[in-house]
């Protein structure tokens, strides 16, 4: 008997809990050369802003112990070209599409989401209120509960399908942010975005990123992400998409056990572009071995001392 991998978040059914994380899968075209995107529960697009953005000048990535730093700076084609050029191709793909939206002002978030409202293939919007790589204000939303609540509430007025609030780990109390997001009307929470970090070249004494600092991601941050998902799950009723350092089915299972209903794979795609396929196979074997009928049987089942 094949275990049931389907998960439902805010009324939307996903064929399985494995999604690709924003900024780690472009708009899907390249990954589609590696595996059929219908294998994915969902694809989350690179953050879309109102205007096209080049991002920061290179170098904008650096390798770190079991992780990486990036300060891409929200390079993207802008919402107009996204709708004109990227969505038509995405419409041909048999997977759910979550469009990640970033802005540097309340207006910008609302305007972009309004433009996506008519785009049926935007199954959900994920609000990136937590990107550490833009100075104009992106991260402020995610570190301030009132602003978190406000931006979500305003976006909900213009976008009727489910809204995912993507939380930053760079806060004293993530539960406070989760509750603010819930208060604002978020349907789902996703966490975590990257941790602020930096790296210095000891030969040149220069920072390794033109932005001087960047976002730390990859296996290194997995324990942090797990603790934060656990904290939010224990204190908030919204469904959670777990993100942070996921590379294997074992990682996915850890996130499900602490309360994530689905997960996103980010940095691991750079190392193994077909990681989602391997993860799905191994997750299925695990469920069979543990004689579990549904992947949802794992959610929140962690045993604490």
């Amino acid at each position: 008997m094949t275990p049931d991998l389907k998960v439902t978040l805010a009324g939307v059914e996903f064929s399985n809990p494995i999604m690709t994380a924003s900024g780690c899968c472009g708009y899907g075209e390249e990954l589609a050369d590696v595996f059929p995107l219908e294998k994915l529960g969902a694809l989350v697009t690179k953050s879309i802003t109102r205007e096209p953005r080049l991002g920061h000048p290179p170098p904008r990535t650096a390798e770190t112990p079991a992780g990486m730093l990036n300060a891409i700076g929200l390079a993207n084609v802008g919402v107009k070209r996204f709708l004109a050029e990227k969505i038509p191709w995405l419409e041909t793909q048999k997977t759910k599409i979550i469009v990640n939206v970033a802005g540097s002002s309340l207006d910008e978030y609302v305007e972009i989401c309004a433009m996506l409202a008519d785009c049926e293939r935007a199954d959900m919007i994920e609000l990136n209120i937590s990107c550490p790589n833009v100075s104009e204000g992106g991260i402020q939303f995610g570190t301030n509960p009132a602003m978190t609540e406000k931006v979500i509430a305003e976006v909900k007025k213009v976008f009727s399908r489910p809204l995912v609030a993507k939380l930053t780990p760079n806060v004293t109390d993530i539960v406070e942010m989760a509750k603010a997001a819930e208060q604002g009307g978020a349907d789902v929470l996703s966490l975590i975005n990257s941790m602020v970090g930096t790296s210095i070249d000891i030969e040149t004494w220069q920072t390794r990123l033109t932005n001087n600092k960047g976002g730390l991601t990859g296996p290194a941050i997995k324990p942090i992400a797990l603790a934060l998902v656990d904290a939010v799950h224990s204190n908030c009723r919204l469904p959670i998409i777990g993100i942070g350092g996921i590379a294997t089915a074992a990682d996915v299972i850890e996130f499900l056990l602490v309360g994530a209903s689905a997960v996103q794979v980010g940095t691991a795609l750079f190392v193994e572009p077909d990681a989602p396929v391997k993860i799905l196979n191994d997750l299925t074997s695990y469920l069979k071995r543990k004689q579990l009928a549904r992947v949802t049987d794992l959610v929140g089942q962690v045993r604490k001392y």
Partner: protein
Amino acid sequence: MKKLATTTVSVTARRDLRNDYYSLTFGPYPRVTKCRPGQFVHIRLPETDILFRRAMSIASVDTDRREIEIIFKVVGRGTTVLSRYRKGDQVDLLGPLGNTFSLPKKSERALLLGGGVGYPPLLYMATHMVRSGFDPKSIEFFYGGRSDRDILDRTRIKKLGVNFHPVTEDGSFGQKGLITHAVESFIQGQKKDRMRIFACGPEPMLKAVDDLGLREGINGELSLEAPMPCGIGVCLGCVVPLKQGGHARVCADGPVFAIGEVIL
């Protein structure tokens, strides 16, 4: 065959070259027929403390034996790990990746410029041209290095029948000086519109070649390097600024760019 895939292959041969250079041959590699000069493979270093794959230009292919070769110099942690692989060890390759050098017209004179660790893709280019019926004597193979110890595979290059121009900074082998100077004096008084440059090497060299090409009106292509987290175009980490504005991804839009195209 999927357009892009990771493939597990074995090391079928290993050569310890001079001055910390190594050659590794991998096979059987079913994707060998898809490989073209200028392309690279992205090599996983599993179970090490190194997260990212390392990009390595394809240095030669053997379609009969379904093997590909890479040549690299040990300069850091990634290449140190690579240099430990022995015959029989398994390796995971993502590729072939990137665009390719474009073949010149048969009437054109091809100037191949390999500087240091930039040599491997030009070896592939020269071999591919000769195999594709180009007159070896239409190929000027410039190979630059610090000194004698940096010029690899001399017999192999000569066997191709190309015009071989080794250049070393200290003059210990071949011409003395910088590879770009050697090329400059070579082209003096020659018809520039019938020449095409193909170059790979350290950034200052590529910049000089780019300047030279623009100044002298010689068309051609440069193969660039950049730190490459993904190698397939999804992370946007490897970009270079373009003269026309905007960024190009070295991994997916390159690594080969036309002279005059990118800001070096």
